[in-house]
């Protein structure tokens, strides 16, 4: 086809004045080449756009596995790479939708390397951070946020701080999360953190209680029956140990004290800490439920 049109051009041009022929030829050839590029580009975009639309429709139907196939196809046939960022970004989101966070993070990283402008890069970065948080790789997320905070200012920086607060919440560092949300004026999230801080049990207090009085830490953490049993066992073995020592049966005293009393005393301390942890976990999970289902605002 192209050959035919080129021949047609030359025939056309030969009708022209001889003086104009050379310049005319050059102009025509130039235009020909230019148009070829232009149309190629435009029309190429057309079928790739169609492909993107198809992939997007699968994505919005939450058919993520097939969506990834179609985005991969888009990327494969897009020879000049103008859809690389979009496809990698969407592949990452698809993996995230399937709760495959490791792969999602990998593809967000790929998208970052393919980003065409600053705003695309920022979006990919934020999505990467969100994925890391939800996968509870909070150390990585916080390190990433800290390095990004050195580059971005203004609103973008504020958004980074917002996600930093979320990362702290998911790392169970509620004091830090609270202070971050207070600084950027997120009152709702701030009050969530405050609530958790008010409600949660202190592991140290629970342990100290149980150090001083076996069972007291369990009582503090809301397990009175267990506390009572711990107290009873410790009282019994303590009594038997002391009785043996007072009766100068030192061997018996050492055996009972070592093998039983000490064992139950240690168990008492472990239980106090374990119950405090368990109760705290419930409190944290309530907060996470609130964030997921009731909180209205930007979420993971």
């Amino acid at each position: 086809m192209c050959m035919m049109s080129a021949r047609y051009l030359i025939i056309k041009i030969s009708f022209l004045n001889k003086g104009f022929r050379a310049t005319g030829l050059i102009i025509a050839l130039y235009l020909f080449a230019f148009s070829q590029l232009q149309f190629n580009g435009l029309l190429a975009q057309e079928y790739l756009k169609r492909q993107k639309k198809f992939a997007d429709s699968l994505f919005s139907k939450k058919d993520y596995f097939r969506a990834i196939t179609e985005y991969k196809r888009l990327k494969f046939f897009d020879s000049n790479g103008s859809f690389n960022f979009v496809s990698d970004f969407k592949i990452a989101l698809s993996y995230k939708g399937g709760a495959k966070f490791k792969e999602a993070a990998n593809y967000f990283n790929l998208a970052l390397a393919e980003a065409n402008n600053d705003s695309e890069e920022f979006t990919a970065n934020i999505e990467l951070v969100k994925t890391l948080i939800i996968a509870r790789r909070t150390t990585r997320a916080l390190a990433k946020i800290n390095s990004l905070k050195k580059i971005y200012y203004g609103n973008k920086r504020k958004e980074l701080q917002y996600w930093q607060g979320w990362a702290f919440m998911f790392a169970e560092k509620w004091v830090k999360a609270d202070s971050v949300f207070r600084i950027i004026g997120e009152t709702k999230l701030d009050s969530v953190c405050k609530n958790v801080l008010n409600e949660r049990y202190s592991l140290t207090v629970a342990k100290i209680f149980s150090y001083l009085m076996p069972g007291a830490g369990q009582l503090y953490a809301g397990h009175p029956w267990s506390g009572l049993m711990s107290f009873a066992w410790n009282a019994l073995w303590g009594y038997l140990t002391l009785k043996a020592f007072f009766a100068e049966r030192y061997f018996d005293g050492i055996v009972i004290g070592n093998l039983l009393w000490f064992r139950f005393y240690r168990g008492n301390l472990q239980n106090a800490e374990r119950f405090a942890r368990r109760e705290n976990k419930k409190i944290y999970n309530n907060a996470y439920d609130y964030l997921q289902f009731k909180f209205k605002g930007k979420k993971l």
Partner: protein
Amino acid sequence: MKIFSTVILTLLLLLVNNDFGQSKVNLFSLQNRKKFADYLFCNKDYLRAFDEYKIYLSEVNNDTIKFKIALGFRKMRRYGEALDYLKSLFFNSKFAIQARNEYFKTLLMANKINAIRRYIKEPIFITGDSLKVPLKLFYVAKMFGNTNLPDSNELKKIFTPEEYSQIDRFYWTKKNLPLKSLTKAGILSALIPGLGKIYTQNYGDGITAFLFTAALGTLAYANFKARHKFRAWLFSGLTALFYSGNIYGSVASAQIFNAKIAFDFRKKLKLYLEKVNYFVPQYNFICN
């Protein structure tokens, strides 16, 4: 004016031309599907590649693709499907020999030792050149099993001298595996508590068992002497329990010892097989 009108006319013509050419681009044409699938296959994204290949195969028969699908299934450890695809290439295909080689390799990878023994006797495998690799794998499979080993001279005929030097080493290792006898372990522990465990090289356990049983026995003896009847019988019972428990444990320990040694041998053999690609020559058409 004349130039401009000509140029515009030309451009219009070009546009028509271009449009005509471009509307032909179809990402889902068979050729494009194959291209895309090849790319996916090389990126180990097998399931997606197979989806494309299967559509391609529904229109065109292509043995290379079938072969690739089989190898992909094997990579995903879906040995059954891999075997099915390989079987379909046994006859009337340019991969007849390769498919047979890969078939045996897959059987060995799937630890289907008995199947290897069965298939080697089938007439399709008893033909000259195509038997070479299957026969090698058949003899290797014998070393994985617990049955009698073949004669060492037989191996010499089948393997190349280079392979033979390695295989021979495995052969003699297998023949002289330092296995422990279960009966011996039990009897030793019955004679002296813990001795069986020492025999199976669990020294700490052996010494502990001896001390533990001895302590319980002493307690029982002391209580009989002091006429504490209840305690005496209690400790006697415990002594008996731990004494027989130790015999039982020694036998179990010998069995575990043997299992570990056999496992170790099989692992080493498998590593060697992977190194030589199960004696199957490498292909360069799968992925560049």
